[in-house]
């Protein structure tokens, strides 16, 4: 039950994801979209500030720049600019992953050799004071890094902090220590934040909400995609940082080494690249509508989570809501925390453990079902949007003062900056 009254909800809140749209599968983007909708539903004046790009890899501006209403929300889109080749970012990123210490200058070059949003920066430079709060996220992206510093006193961060090399870079210290407030999703993320940033900004562990589907039809999913053998499911970006390549190798061990009769079904973006000999075992279903996605979870033997760098891991929650267990990587605090607390799955540290976990679930359906049941209870008791939005509202009221006088007026729709004249380098 919210303790925030209508009077407290004065002023406009901007939610600032790097990408926005119903088709986007990134965890933080989905969450920020729900927050925007949830806050508007509770009576807040909400505006979404984002890029005109929806593809994480190309950052092509495939949406119109400017302001319009999308799904009932006012959305102001700015041109995403990717005018550098990204080779320096790649080189520096590899050094970062190898544990090399980057100088501050190198860290700056790393963050700026990627997509940037000058229009958004200038919009805030001119109009930040017209918003009561600006909710950025996740910490890693350029808009959060650069634009939250325009008006740090009204910038809030949906942190999504992972124990990853980037989090140890000095350039992020001001972001995590100097904004008006941080929203954290789990206790492991909270512990990590304190460990990395001793002078942490005001913060609250608010959790994260997950929608409960009204029902599931796993057989319909199997029939639609012609899947006959048992399968494990992976949803998300297929890239090294998410553990996709490692998952493929582990899956190869499970199927070819351990002899498990399993398929790997995957949904999301990125190249699949199945290992040789497993081409027919790896099924890419691309992006799915919500109901098909839920059916895919329900039909799986288990959901596999190979990503070490999770701040919350909503896909785990979606699997548990569907009553299916999780086989998650043990290295990385958040996945371990969820699995150990709920006892809704198994943890692995290497390929043999991965294969053995799947073998146990395949050979003992009742154990798998019981783990799925425990997982569902865990999600229902902790991660519902009403509770999460209560915490977010309370924090906004605590961390940002309500607007006074005319300061809360909306910025003009057709402002001068943000027009499509940003371009790049020479």
């Amino acid at each position, binding site marked *: 039950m919210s303790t925030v009254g209508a009077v407290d909800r004065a002023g406009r809140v901007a939610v600032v994801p790097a990408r926005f749209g119903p088709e986007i599968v990134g965890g933080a983007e989905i969450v920020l979209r729900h927050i925007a909708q949830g806050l508007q539903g509770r009576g807040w004046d909400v505006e979404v500030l984002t890029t005109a790009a929806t593809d994480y890899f190309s950052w092509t501006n495939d949406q119109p720049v400017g302001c319009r209403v999308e799904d009932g929300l006012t959305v102001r889109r700015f041109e995403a600019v990717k005018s550098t080749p990204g080779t320096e970012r790649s080189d520096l990123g590899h050094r970062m992953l190898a544990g090399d210490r980057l100088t501050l200058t190198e860290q*700056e070059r790393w963050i700026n050799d990627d997509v940037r949003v000058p229009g958004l920066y*200038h919009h805030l430079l*001119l109009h930040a004071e017209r918003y009561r709060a600006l909710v950025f996220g996740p910490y890693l992206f350029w808009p959060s890094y650069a634009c939250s510093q325009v008006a740090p006193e009204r910038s809030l961060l949906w942190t999504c902090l992972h124990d990853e090399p980037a989090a140890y870079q000095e350039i992020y*210290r*001001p972001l995590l220590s100097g904004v008006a407030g941080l929203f954290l999703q789990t206790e492991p993320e909270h512990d990590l934040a304190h460990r990395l940033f001793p002078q942490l900004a005001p913060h609250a562990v608010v959790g994260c909400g997950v929608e409960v589907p009204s029902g599931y039809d796993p057989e319909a999913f199997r029939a639609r995609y012609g899947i006959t053998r048992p399968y494990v499911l992976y949803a998300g970006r297929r890239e090294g940082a998410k553990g996709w390549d490692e998952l493929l190798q582990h899956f190869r061990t499970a199927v070819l080494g351990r002899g498990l009769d399993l398929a790997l079904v995957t949904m999301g973006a990125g190249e699949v690249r199945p290992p040789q000999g497993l081409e027919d075992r790896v099924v890419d279903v691309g992006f799915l509508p919500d109901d098909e996605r839920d059916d895919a979870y329900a039909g799986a033997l288990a959901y596999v989570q190979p990503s070490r760098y999770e701040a919350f891991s909503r896909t785990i929650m979606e699997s548990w809501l569907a009553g299916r267990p999780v086989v998650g990587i043990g290295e990385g605090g958040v996945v371990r925390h969820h699995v150990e607390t709920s006892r809704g799955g198994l943890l692995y540290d290497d390929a043999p453990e991965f294969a053995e976990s799947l073998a146990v679930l395949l050979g003992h359906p009742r154990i798998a079902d019981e783990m799925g049941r425990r997982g569902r209870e865990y999600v229902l008791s902790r991660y519902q949007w009403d509770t999460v939005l209560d915490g977010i509202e309370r924090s906004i009221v605590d961390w940002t003062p309500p607007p006074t006088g005319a300061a809360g007026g909306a910025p003009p729709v057709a402002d*001068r900056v943000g027009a499509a004249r940003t*371009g790049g380098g*020479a």
Partner: protein
Amino acid sequence: MRILVISPYPPQRDGIANYAAQAVADLMRQGHDVVVVSPQPSAAHLHIDFMAGPRAWAALARRARGFDKIVIQWHPAFFYRSSSVVDRSSIDLAMAGVFRLVPEVEVWVHEYEYAEVLRSPSRRRAARAAFSRATLVFHSERERDAFLEAVPVDIGRTRVEQHGRSFRRRTAMSREEARASLGIAPDEFVFLCIGFIQRHKGFDRAVRAFAALDAPRARLDVVGSTRLDEPEFLAHLAELELLTDQTQGARLHTGYVSDELFDRWILASDTVVLPYREIWSSGVLERAALFDRRVIATRVGGLEQQAGGRDVVFVDDDAALLAEMAAAAQVSLRLGDVGTDITDDIGWADLQATVSARAALVRGSAARALRAVEGPGRAQGATPVDRTAGMVRRLPPYVVPPATSTRPGAPVVKRLVQRLTGWLILPLASRVDQLQAATANSLDVVAAEIQRLREETPAASGGRSTPSAGGPGATTPG
């Protein structure tokens, strides 16, 4: 009006970048249509690599057509890639070509290489060709006078503007919150040196002066980072690290400083110290004024004019700096005084003693001598390992040898070799400096561990092992 602004720009950590963003916001609020070009990728609309020399200005020329005005935030480091007179002159001339393409050009001069231009008639002509077409804006009349002496352009095309006219506060914290967030106790008196760490900023002078204060409840925080990771910058940083390590109450905070964190430090401080050896204007001075912080500054460049009637105490030397810091914190000096006031009738002995005392402060030996006497166990426990770290730190940095020779043609060949091999040699030189710092830091860790063990086992401090109750590893007195 369509205005093209050329400047470093956020999120690059740079005072001028921050200055430019606030000036751009002002122009936009006035209704101008503004496009920003920065030397590196940033929040600017475009970026052009000015280290490409005249080619970069050719690229800018293609972009500049159609604009009513160009505004440049000028600092030589942003636009010149070498100190060669020929190279800089060619860039000046390329710049002059661009300036012809737009009706109005405004150059905000933050720094200029007055002496270099005065020495070279050809450079002077090139600079004049460029700047005579622009309106020049300075932050003090002294800067303007120095510029006009070096580059004789029409004074009617110049003006002096208040440095901080577009500045806004970047932190909403209260002073108490700011101090708590930075780990500063309520009763501590805080001196602050903040900004890029480079020799001409003179932060080392403040540390040496602070070392001579008898102020157990005072602290000096030096906050900033090096602008570039080049040997001379890193060597100065290493020197400052050594100095702050040796000085009780002095702390060096190296790392990224955002605009918000910058302002938070200023708000949290009691006195901002600007012990610059040379500078023409100071953004820190303006930000200190935003928060009504007291400032002690050296009387250099145009600072005094920039300060106007604000709460700034100007000093001319290190002795005066020390005296003003003592007065600000209301404390006495550890060495009594820096000598007698020098008057016409001062005796020779007093004069000699005063000279020696003041020189000691400048040299830093006072600080080191104090540590030797006062350090709780540190000085008496100083080990060869302590000294080794110091020795490693004091190794001079690798500097590219000048391309000079008495043999005809040899300098040209040397410069060519340097240019061809620079991409390979300079990273190696940088790595040598990093290894030097890493070695010194490692030795410091070892020294600290030795000290800790000594303090745990006092009997061992005389150099003898402590007998234990026996068992493996037990030793006997030597």
